[in-house]
């Protein structure tokens, strides 16, 4: 593995916001709306559902790699998955997302930087996924930070 910061090509794909997926994810996230659990019939539950807040984080399933980009990097030997920590995520919404929408996604490694700490060097990977309408209007961005503990004093 090279010591230099790795790069990753951007990927583009479309992300259909499916009614059933919105309901399934909302129920898995213990959404307090009791109507969601009453039926799986769009004629009974609202026929248009808001996308759960974190739904864009599973868009990778619709992309060419079908795994999050950090996993792609691990599979290519660009990062050591056993040294990875999940740093955090930020979702920013410019418009609501609802079932029936189809979004165009561009996912890329936006930033890589190292920080020296008392416990060694940490390498930060920031991934940004931008979600737009098919007309190009920005709907949402998701920034994901992964941290790799670099080999050093701890081995």
């Amino acid at each position: 593995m090279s010591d230099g910061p790795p790069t990753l090509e951007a990927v583009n794909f479309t992300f259909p916001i499916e009614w059933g997926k919105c309901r399934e994810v909302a129920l898995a996230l213990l959404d307090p709306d009791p109507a969601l659990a009453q039926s799986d019939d769009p004629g009974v539950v609202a026929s248009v559902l808001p996308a759960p807040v974190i739904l864009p984080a599973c868009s990778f399933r619709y992309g060419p790699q079908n795994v999050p980009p950090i996993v792609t990097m691990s599979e290519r030997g660009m990062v050591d998955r056993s040294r990875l920590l999940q740093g955090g995520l930020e979702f920013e919404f410019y418009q609501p997302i609802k079932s029936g929408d189809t979004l165009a996604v561009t996912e890329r490694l936006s930033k890589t930087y190292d920080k020296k700490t008392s416990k060694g060097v940490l390498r930060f990977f920031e991934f940004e996924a931008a979600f737009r309408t098919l007309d190009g209007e920005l709907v949402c961005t998701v920034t994901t930070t992964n941290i790799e503990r670099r080999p050093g004093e701890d081995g």
Partner: protein
Amino acid sequence: MVDEVSNPPRVKVTDLNVGSTMPERRIGPITQEHLIRYAGAMGDFNPFHYDAELVRSRGFKGIFAQGLFTAGILGQTLAAWAGQHLIRKLGVRFAEPVWLGDNLIISAVVTRTYSSDHGKARAELDCMVSSGDGRQVLKGYATVGEAD
């Protein structure tokens, strides 16, 4: 399964002030079924969330929840309180693992109110998810208000 705030009333962003709080929600205990449902729904099949033998072989005391599972519960709790279409931002940092059997306490407090560049009322919140035994498992921040 405890869920003490099942359907909190919606707030008006214009009624929020610094110090206003989202009604605390207590849920749990978190079970393996929760994590499997989440894995299937979101596509996160990392074995650390269902393979007890593997996680113990790596030095963990047991299976722990996907970080985004906890973040997602916070997101849906905020959405039920403020309205999903009013969530402008949600950021999270994972502080400690959520273990099977943990209860979760979800809370948020308004730290700033302001008007957007387009005059829309906005409120910023500090968010927190704690375990029943007092560990802070997630720190977060959110902004709610109409889109510009």
